């Protein structure tokens, strides 16, 4: 709704340099265009800073719509984000079922297939149910490495589906509505053929190793000695 407060929480350790931030920031701008009052906070700087964590928890309680953007880690949310969600849920036992606030999420993963993100979407939905948020949907996309830390609008032709999908999602979220499946599918469309993404990624690992002088050691097995013990 117009004037309602939206909080974007960026749940990547890469902070402002993350794909999560690029995606979340774009959605946030679109929500602002739809008349919402926007605010963004990063999770990781608050982990070792009690004051920042208290601010973050207070901002979560104060918003109408919470949007969490995060990377897929081992098919799931990064540990510090689960920890935060557990804290939020524990603080809201009396709220269960009330659903005064809404929740939406954006997850991106490094593999090219969007479907790797499915369990994370399910976990976000169960969190919403258990913590008393109305769940409006989880946008998900593979090939996250292709975006990197660029502003989404500057990532060019490859992100045309994502730009369109996030734009449409913002319209629904601002109206307090669930993101339709068709919009989630649009935002999750591949940015390029899978073989090409995988080829670029493999080259990327090799050139990063070269930069670090570890080219010949990529297959090193430093703990292999343990196997004999």
């Amino acid at each position, binding site marked *: 709704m117009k004037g309602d407060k939206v909080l974007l929480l960026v749940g990547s*350790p890469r902070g402002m340099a993350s794909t999560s931030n690029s995606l979340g920031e774009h959605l946030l701008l679109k929500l602002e265009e739809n008349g919402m009052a926007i605010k963004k906070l990063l999770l990781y700087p608050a982990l070792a800073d009690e004051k920042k964590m208290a601010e973050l928890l207070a901002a979560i309680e104060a918003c109408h719509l919470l949007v969490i953007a995060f990377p897929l880690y081992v098919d799931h949310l990064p540990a510090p984000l689960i920890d935060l969600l557990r804290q939020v849920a524990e603080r809201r036992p009396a709220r269960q079922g009330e659903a005064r606030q809404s929740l939406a999420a954006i997850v991106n993963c490094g593999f090219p297939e969007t479907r*790797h993100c499915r*369990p994370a979407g399910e976990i976000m939905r*169960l969190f919403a149910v258990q913590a008393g948020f109305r769940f409006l949907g989880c946008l998900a996309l593979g090939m996250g490495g292709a975006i990197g830390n660029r502003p989404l609008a500057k990532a060019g032709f490859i992100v045309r589906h994502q730009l369109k999908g996030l734009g449409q999602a913002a319209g629904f979220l601002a109206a307090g509505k669930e993101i339709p499946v068709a919009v989630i599918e649009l935002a999750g469309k591949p940015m390029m053929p899978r073989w090409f993404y995988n080829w670029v990624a493999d080259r990327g690992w090799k050139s990063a190793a070269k930069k*670090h002088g570890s080219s010949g050691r990529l297959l090193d097995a430093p*703990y292999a000695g343990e*196997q004999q013990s």
Partner: protein
Amino acid sequence: MKAVFFKGSPPAGRDPLSNRAAAAVMAKAKALDWEMKAFPLAAMDIQPCRGCFSCWVKSPGRCIIHDDEEQILAATAASDRVIWLTPVTFGGYAPELKKALDRIIPILLPFFTRVRGETHHPLRYPRPRRLLAIGTLRQDDAESEGAFRRLVGRNALNMGDVEVDTLVFSGDVALAEMEKQLADEPFFRGVAL
């Protein structure tokens, strides 16, 4: 048999059900005379993953953070059996287990390979492993349990398509009952791979 136990029970006393499941696992491994390394994750110094991929491209196979996760990596590399224990949390793992799993990626190689039609990473220490994931739930919750089982299945695929067993204890399950259920698991029956 070399086993590694990711004991993801919350800090002492917070979750008796999870502690009971941990005791059942320890007893079972002892009875089988397994060489098991058990890691009480809640009490260990394991920093969050920084997402820098140094463990793949800068110091291949090693994380740049030097803390208790190093022992876990070494034990996992050498293991035939891996056990994860966690309270089911929103249908997934609690942060105690997850902080250790986020830091496990040095046991994978950066390159992409195709597994059952999907992209995954090859293992740095290939070895026929078997995984047992145990979740605890204070009360029956079919939705959370279903999500947990699906997540474990995805992880098994992602970690070298390992053989996997999933067990969920829900409600106030007694220790003897847990031990009985564990004994029935193919994981503990010493099935050769």
